[in-house]
């Protein structure tokens, strides 16, 4: 039914990875291409610790509320390539808690029990190696686009000329005009543009891990597709591991190499799925019948996993 999608979509779209090594045209996508990952498999290389590893992590707050319970997963460190992990689940399932534990942000950090390891070392607090992009497009109101993007370098004491030069490059990378937009203030920008500024401010530091907490949740659908394409293109030459929280199954399946599905109250990791990579533009790929079948299959799976009858 969906076997010959690549031939039916006509010519390969221009954003379909001109620089991707395994560029043999888009592969067909169907529920059969989704594979379940199991956490009992040991890390591929014992000498090389995983980029991110959660070992039986539980977070309970002072008032007794448990946000996440016994979460275990790892993301291997593959040389020259980062994994794009999307986190999916209803509100209150602890997706943001996991992101903030990785980032080392209070009050989620530190975990009540279990270990959160980044390249083998426990998280001590926030740092520039783990960039974070929030939903509400955080750009410093008092700084121009240029100074917003250069903020991290400024904190490191990088000289004005060098940090502006690097900031201009990143501003262009995220699809803003380095000449026209660089001196604008955040209040003069649209939501999508502000989010590009926030992404640029993180990218300029070349973090090993990028954490994105529903970054496109408040954008209109057309802008959202454009931003998804942007992320896919940026990520290709970034070599960073991305953790991306979303409410949208379509977004999770499109962007992710791996999708983690969580259930609420308290947050538990239900399943990890390997999903097809985004090798076509967001708008066209997310309309393909094969893609939609995968989305529906995951939606059904989530419904089943969440229904009270399925619980033990």
């Amino acid at each position, binding site marked *: 039914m969906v076997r010959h999608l690549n031939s039916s979509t006509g010519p390969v779209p221009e954003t379909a990875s001109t620089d991707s090594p395994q560029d043999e045209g888009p592969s067909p996508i169907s529920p059969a291409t989704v594979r379940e990952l199991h956490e009992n498999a040991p890390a591929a290389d014992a000498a090389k610790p995983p980029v991110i590893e959660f070992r039986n992590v539980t977070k309970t707050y002072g008032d007794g509320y448990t946000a996440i319970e016994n979460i275990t997963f790892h993301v291997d460190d593959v040389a020259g390539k980062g994994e794009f992990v999307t986190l999916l689940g209803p509100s209150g399932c602890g997706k943001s808690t996991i992101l903030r534990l990785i*980032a080392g942000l209070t009050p989620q950090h530190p975990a009540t029990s279990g270990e959160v390891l980044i390249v083998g070392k426990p998280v001590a607090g926030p*740092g520039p190696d*783990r960039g*974070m992009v929030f939903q509400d497009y955080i750009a410093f109101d*008092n*700084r121009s686009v240029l100074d917003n993007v250069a*903020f991290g370098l*400024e*904190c490191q004491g990088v000289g004005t000329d060098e940090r502006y030069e690097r900031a201009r490059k990143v501003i262009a990378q995220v699809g803003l005009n380095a000449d026209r937009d660089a001196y604008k203030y955040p209040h003069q920008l649209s939501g999508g543009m502000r989010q590009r500024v926030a992404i640029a401010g993180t990218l300029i*530091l070349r973090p090993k891990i990028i954490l994105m907490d529903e970054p496109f949740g408040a954008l209109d659908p057309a802008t959202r597709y454009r931003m998804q394409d942007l992320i896919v293109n940026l990520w290709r030459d970034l070599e960073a591991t991305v953790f991306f929280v979303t409410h949208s199954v379509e977004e999770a399946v499109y962007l992710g190499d791996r999708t983690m599905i969580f259930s609420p109250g308290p947050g538990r990791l239900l399943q990890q799925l390997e999903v097809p990579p985004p090798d076509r533009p967001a708008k066209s790929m997310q309309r393909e019948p094969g893609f939609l079948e995968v989305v529906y299959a995951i939606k059904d799976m989530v419904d089943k996993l969440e229904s009270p009858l399925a619980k033990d």
Partner: protein
Amino acid sequence: MASSTRSIFALRAAPSPVIGRLIGVLSVAALILVWYLITLGAAESRVVSPAILPTPLEVGRRLLTLITGGSDAEGSTLALNIAASLKRVISGFFLAFIVGVPLGIIAGVSGPVRAALAPHALFMRNIPLAALIPLTMVSFGIDEQQKTMFIFLAVAPFLMGDAMVAIVRVPDKYVETAQTRGASTFQIITKVLIPLAMPAIYSSMRTLFGLAVGYIMLAELVNADLGLGHMLLVGQRRSDLPTIFATLVVIATLAFFVDKLLQLLQGKIFPYRPAED
């Protein structure tokens, strides 16, 4: 379409700027007309006795004399009196600024400092303004220093409190974004919290400066030989009602223009956040 034909009496609708201004002018004219009518005629036949209310014409004439540089009974011009009052406000306010704002920022940044300062701030804010007059007179005499300290004590606790609140209200997400970009605690304070709190601190300063311009009259009722408050006192001593009324008009107008000036500066200092009225 519906909005263009909307009646100006529509619920909660704001009239157009021109109509709005016109209504404002008419309203003032109506007040002056009523004032004129109740002070019309010979002193004995007026609705309101001249011992209570002068005629608008008398007040207008006095105002004109004051503005055109005529000196008052003591030989001081209006400009000199305004300058004297503003000088006292500015010196006291400046002192309140250099003490109150840094303290407020430290209290906003640090929870323990906030907890330590809270009872003092609460105490200071609840002292009635008028009670500061005898207090400052005992401690600082009855000259210029006392008037400066009066404004300082009246303003500083509020300025500190507002600066503290402004820092506390900067959303966590800004701090967290800075942290994940490698900013140190000191950098977060100087590069994120203070710049983002400044517009709110400035707004508070604007309001407090306007209040201080009003407060100084209270201090000038005691041992001042210049100042708008002193003008009021002289008017009262001589039962010179037109001078008192004219001075009140001057005070209100001055306060209005000072606020407009501060608002204009706000737009210049903080171009990234449009000044609110």
